[in-house]
């Protein structure tokens, strides 16, 4: 972020790309736009952006295929622009590796917030490099070796599966995680349809973590899609 972060916008609506290009440029980002998935992927391989914002329904190569192609070669954050009623495609995009989504029509603030969060996550020190033993994230402090967790300074006791789920959440903080992604990561591919497993464990975790169960602030529900973890400040 010290240099200008590069953002690639892929959308077949010239008016929208025009506006987003100006809006993002005015915030100091370096922006390029492409009109479909094919041109988008070409721009991606040529220009190596730090973040991709893509529409889902596009001629030639659509947003889903673009996600698939980008993920095959890179871990750069992808934000999907979707519309209400496109839930199925949106979940598919997230399963294919998209990091976040914004629902049309959206205010520029919302998009900018998602852009900042995605870039922050991507620029965070790579914790996976040398198998860290301590995870510090917002209100959470986790010792992976002794499997001890403190939240807002208070130790809490979790079952092994709850512990694994929370660690997965912390490692992917801010990112939208689909039911399928979570089930596959924690229970394996045979359980991808067992949303109720997840509901039970998320419920238990919330009881132990959340100060107010009625308004969860750490584990946020994305209706019909999955969850997003916010570690707090």
């Amino acid at each position, binding site marked *: 972020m010290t240099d200008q972060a590069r953002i690639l916008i892929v959308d077949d*609506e010239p*008016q*929208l790309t*025009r*506006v987003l290009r100006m809006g993002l440029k005015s915030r100091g*980002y370096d922006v390029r736009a492409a*009109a479909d998935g094919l041109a988008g992927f070409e721009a991606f391989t040529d220009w190596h952006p730090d973040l991709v914002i893509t529409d889902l329904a596009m001629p030639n190569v659509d947003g889903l295929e673009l996600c698939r192609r980008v993920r095959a070669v890179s871990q750069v954050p992808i934000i999907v622009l979707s519309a209400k*009623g496109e839930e199925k495609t949106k979940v598919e995009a997230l399963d294919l590796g998209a990091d976040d989504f914004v629902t049309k029509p959206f205010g*520029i603030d919302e998009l900018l917030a998602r852009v900042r969060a995605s870039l922050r996550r991507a620029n965070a020190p790579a914790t996976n490099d040398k198998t860290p033993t301590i995870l510090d994230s917002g209100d959470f402090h986790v010792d992976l070796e002794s499997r001890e967790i403190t939240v807002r300074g208070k130790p809490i006791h979790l079952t092994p599966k709850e512990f694994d789920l929370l660690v997965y959440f912390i490692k992917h903080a801010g990112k939208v995680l689909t039911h399928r992604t979570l089930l596959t990561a924690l229970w394996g591919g045979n359980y991808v349809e067992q949303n109720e497993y997840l509901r039970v464990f998320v419920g238990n975790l919330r009881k132990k973590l959340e100060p107010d169960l009625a308004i969860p602030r750490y584990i946020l529900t994305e209706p019909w899609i999955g969850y997003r973890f916010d570690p707090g400040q």
Partner: protein
Amino acid sequence: MSSVLIPGYNVLMRRSVLDQRWAGYVVAALGVLASTVVLKLIGNHVNAATVSLALLLNVLFIATRWGSLPALAASIFAMLCFNFFFLPPFGTFNIAATDNWVALVAFLITAVTAGELSARATRRAEEAEVGRLEIERLYAELRDAFERASHAEALRQSENLKSALLDAVTHDLRTPLTSIKASITTLLDEARGRVDGEAPLALDAESKMEMMEVIDEESDRLSRFINGLIELAQIEAGELQLRRRWGVVDEIISAALLRAEPLTRQHHLEVDIEKDLPGVRVDERAVSEVVYTLVENAAKYSSQDSMIKVAAQRAGEESIQMSVEDEGQGIPVELRERVFDKFFRATRDGDISTQQPSGTGMGLAIAKGIVEAHEGKIWIESGAGGIGTRVVFTLPIGDE
């Protein structure tokens, strides 16, 4: 009396009585008796063969009508009558000559066999009839089930169509709205002087102006889309109010071209209107709208500096024909009817690639509605030399 007053009832009664098996025995007895009397009246010396054939007829009749048991009874009774009245010595059951025994036994066997065969044939025919009725019933049931199924299928398809249309409409409403919302929130942030996150806001005057232009253009687009929807709905409901007046083709085309001028500036426009074209009794505004839509499409889907030809000529005694032709990439034959379907976009749904954004998918549908409301026809053909697209429509001149 009752038979006179209520003939239908009487027939039914008779039929139902005759259908009883005991009626078969009665008719058998009466029939054989009557035959015997008639034969006796003819004379004592009637040939034995004649007698046996006459009596056999009774048996056959009974077998066909009432089945094998009454036929068997008829056979035995006929055999007894044959023996008593026609085989000497007459009036007794004794038989004098051996050959008459043979005749009697042969008669009995023939009668019983013929009766049985004939009854069986009748039974088979009845079974076949029952089978036929059963097949007809099954067929009717199947047809009803099929009709119900196709009705359900039609409903399902119509639901699917509705949801596809809703998707198309919401997409077209949401797209400009998204650009407007993104522009206006950017401008608002700038006006409020808000600086959030790490990136400071720096909108130059040119960007601000551009954003406002986007808002302006996209609002127009929304408005056009909504007007189009209303017009389509009117056409579909048959409520298109045509204000038909005598008009001049030149003026209709000029009005359309004037309106389309900003779109055709980069193209070469050629207008070819036949001399001495008669006036036409049409809704000038609506027809001009058709010409405008066709010219707009031509400009949108062909490259700069290419030619757009607008032509009008007589087509037979009672119609005139107008056409708009471009030098674009053309429309494949298989899509030439579908492009008139509402919300169908060749660039999006028809796998035609272009740099142009797709339109609303309503222009040609509305044009078709207007032309058909005038009892004209509209179609698409290839341009001159097989290049580009030529959209042609006809309009009746009108006779009042």
